[in-house]
């Protein structure tokens, strides 16, 4: 139940959505400004609790922003793509298995996975969520369209601060370009307090090995441990080596040391997040290494 009166529109084009977002709502409502509605799993509960009182809701559901498609060089993920769509896509498994693993672990069951969207989660920019860290680890590029036209920028720039995206007023996030990580091994580890908990810490790792098992490229991003996703440079520990337990441990140590301002909430204090960062990073890197070696073996076979 939403206590205040507001205007609701669901334009059938992106241009219509942007126009609706940038023109005043008709009188009669008692809200404050316009707000974009994606899956609604955050916006509607906030409105029910009167924490958000938009004068107008602009629903993207008819604007053609759903789904995920392969592009040859990767994926195009629509802002309205749901977790269920990620999970159903063979292109996601091929080009960004990390996103598939992330989507499998989303809390809330099928009802939520079929309703909540990747774009909605990204724009919410909640520190304790899965999507921001996973997209940053994949090297995704965000697409946003506003009255001035389209801009593209590295997705890391979308996460300006806790609960704040860098979208400009009147702008709509339309989707992401995700480069293919085929051939790399991916690992994703999420630590929660239990089935109903939001993420306390996530670690997303991508490792690319050469034929001889030498690490050519590694990417490690921690989520939920800091206000915005934390990319950790672990090249010094792993790149150019044949990674073993020592190298992985050193990389994990670098990850733990990189957490200087941990996120703090009522489910876990910052000190806890800082303490678990290294072991979570180690587990994700180990997963990614195992996957990378398997990929090489499969390629040879």
């Amino acid at each position: 139940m939403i206590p205040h009166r507001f205007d609701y529109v669901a334009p059938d084009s992106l241009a219509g959505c942007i126009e609706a977002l940038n023109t005043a709502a008709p009188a009669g409502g008692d809200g404050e400004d316009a707000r974009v509605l994606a899956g609604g799993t955050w916006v509607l509960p906030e409105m029910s609790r009167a924490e958000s009182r938009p004068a107008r809701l602009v629903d993207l559901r008819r604007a053609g922003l759903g789904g995920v498609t392969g592009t040859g060089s990767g994926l195009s993920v629509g802002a309205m793509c749901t977790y269920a769509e990620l999970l159903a896509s063979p292109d996601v498994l091929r080009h960004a298995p990390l996103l598939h693993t992330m989507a499998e672990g989303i809390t809330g069951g099928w009802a939520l996975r079929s309703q909540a969207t990747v774009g909605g989660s990204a724009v919410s920019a909640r520190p304790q969520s899965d999507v921001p860290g996973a997209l940053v680890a994949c090297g995704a590029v965000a697409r946003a369209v506003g009255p001035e036209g389209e801009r593209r920028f590295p997705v890391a720039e979308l996460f300006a601060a806790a609960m704040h995206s860098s979208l400009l007023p009147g702008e709509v996030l339309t989707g992401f370009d995700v480069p293919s990580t085929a051939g790399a091994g991916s690992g994703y580890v999420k630590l929660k307090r239990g089935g109903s908990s939001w993420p306390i810490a996530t670690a997303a790792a991508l490792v690319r090995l050469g034929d001889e098992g030498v690490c050519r490229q590694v990417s490690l991003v921690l989520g939920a441990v800091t206000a915005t996703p934390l990319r950790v440079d672990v090249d010094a520990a792993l790149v150019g080596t044949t990674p073993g337990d020592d190298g992985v441990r050193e990389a994990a140590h670098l990850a733990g040391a990189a957490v200087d301002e941990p996120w703090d909430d009522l489910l876990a204090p910052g000190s806890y997040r800082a303490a678990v960062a290294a072991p979570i990073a180690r587990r994700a890197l180990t997963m990614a290494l195992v996957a990378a070696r398997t990929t090489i073996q499969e390629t040879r076979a």
Partner: protein
Amino acid sequence: MTSTLPRRSVGQRVKRHDGDAHLTGQAVYTGDVTVPGTTHAALVRSPHAHATIESIDTTAALAHPGVLAVVTGAEIAAVTDEIPHGLDAGHLGGHHAVVRPLAVGKVVHVGEPVAAVVALTPADAAAAALLVEVGYDLLPVVLDPDAALAEDAPLLYPEWGDNVIIAREVGPDDFDEVATSAAHVLDGELRGHRGNAAPMETRTYLADWDSRRRHLTVWATTQNPHVMRTVLASTLRLPEGSIRVIALKIGGSFGLKMYGNREDFIAPVLSRLVGRPVKWVEERSAALLPAARDQRLAYRVAFDDDGRLRALDVHAVSDHGAGAATHGWGMAHVGALATGLGYALDHCHVRYTVVATNKAPWVGTKPFGKESATLLLERIMDRIAVTTGLDPAEVRRRNFLAPDAFPHTHTSGLELDSGDYAAALDLTLELLDHPAARAMQSAARAEGRCVGIGLGFELMPESADIPGALVAAFDTSTVRMSPSGQVTVLTGVTSPGTGNDTAIAQLVADELGVAMSEITVVQGDTDLCPYGFGNISSRSIITGGNAAVLAARDLVATLHTTARAMLSAGPEEAIVLGDGMAQVAGDPERALPVPAVAGAVHTLSYLLGLDIEPRLESTRTYRPANVRQVPDELGRMNTYTTYPYAVHASLLEVDPETGSVTLLRHVVTHDCGTVVNPMFVDGQVTGGVAMGIGAALGEELVFDADGVPASTGFKTYLLPRAIDLPRVELGHLCTPAPGTPLGAKGVGEAGFSGALAAVVNAVNDAIAPLGAALEATPVSPPRVLAALLEAGQ
């Protein structure tokens, strides 16, 4: 020809009679009810933990579309009396808290209702509530007992002179004398935490004041409809006969919906003031305000080299929150009564201090303070094991009361009726395969893994009777048979969703020899049912069930006499009722359908020359004989009827890098005497275990430094989900309750306490090799990891 015994349903896994309605969404809950002209209420709640109310401006709210009225606490106070207490600390040496439906003059916790809006739609009511402007003058807050008990502490109720709701003692204060001759004395402190009942259905009411009849009908999510009517009448200044309370299906209560809460009064008062039907549905964040379990136990324990307990001395300090008219503070008293219960312990002294703080008040919550006593004794048993080098199971076995020790009067006065605690321990260890579990633990430790095994013995006094209060160990049921043989059972006990109505139907079906499908059970309606005390203290089968059995037996006597006349049976021939027939024992040819006999009672009594009252209706009250409220020479009473118990074992693994706890197995052996329906008992124990595990690991009400609750929903108050829980492996013993018609003992609070203790003990067992220990709950990952890091430094 020999007759076979009639089929009996007691002891069988009979499906609940209304299961289809629940599964298909047809069961009617209070929120489903609407009457013509229904309006909706929303509350204005305090954002401050402690403040005086300087002004309330309702102008803007009244101007909002659809608003019918905005009512303040002072306006309600002018036309009502204060809420009667369920258990008044003021009568027992403590302080009396004046509680009204809405706050008057000052607020003492965040979320306290200050004003109410009535509007045509729920949304308009909620929107207008946001427009009520309340001027507050902030007062300093006290958020824990230390702050509240400090010399110059701000006072919630200045007229009290302190922040102590009540302080009492239970048992002889002789620890020091006994301890001098004991081999060991340990002291310690155990800290519990604030938790909540968290039922699926929040409290919901529809009140309909009929001004022509001067009559109030209230549909309410209450465990105690009759008692709610009694206290509503008092506060609303109405005769009890002018009020009808109807409790429909309940979506869980666990004590939260026991009478005495101010929430019960809001819709009735508003309906009376506005003259329209008023519905009020509690917000989830508000349902997470009431609390329990927030206790700190400082203790000293004396024991000998053989692990046997000698004496125990406890000081329990309860962080109660604000004053209330509920039974909430009684949880501290019951915890004191239950401390040490079931163990051979001749010297047990508990002092308890219930402290008022600027949080929402305690409200009676399953298992009503007994969980603190269980956790304390079970931690002590494990500490004794460490000190003496004995196995934790052996320490318990040596300290348990023996099966031939009953009846046994504990130092608190409670009189244990029966049980075989060591047998329950043995069965639990057998189901666990204890040696194999220990071997697995050793192997895991050798690999650097942290596997723990923990035990928990719970003993739950049930079916309470509080002298002078509307909490009784007895209850009343009516059984009625129509001319077509249809049976109606009307009972004063209610079901919180657990299905005791099905169990009562089973009992009556067996007595009358008819099928379950012939029986309708009516509960929860004060105009239909005998006056009763509803659902509290795991009493429904013991009281309402036994009463229904007694009433059904009265009908059986009438049916026997009538069938005897109809079948021309001689005085030496017995009549047997079963499978829908009344037959002469041993002669199946001479038989009549039960409906034919019932019809004859109603239509042929003169023709058959029946020399009895032709009555197929009886109302009986069952009152257990073992409650004793005339104090003994030490001033002690036995206020409980039955004493079910259980022994739990938890096998779990702690991740030493993250503090995460993975439950591998949970085994529990339970004894609640005669079981009417094993499915319901299994369900109760399993559900109780889930709640206990939730309390052990995750469920915690958290506040910020100003006393604002941060746990406002199920993303911040973490209930366990199915994936967090192992399958609960159950064993059963049956020690029938002596001297009762059925032999049944209460099972409504089973599972929680022993699971809490077993999990806390198992976590400690898992981390002990790393030198870590946790004497505080919840044993959540951040706390476990903090303990491990502290031990590692």
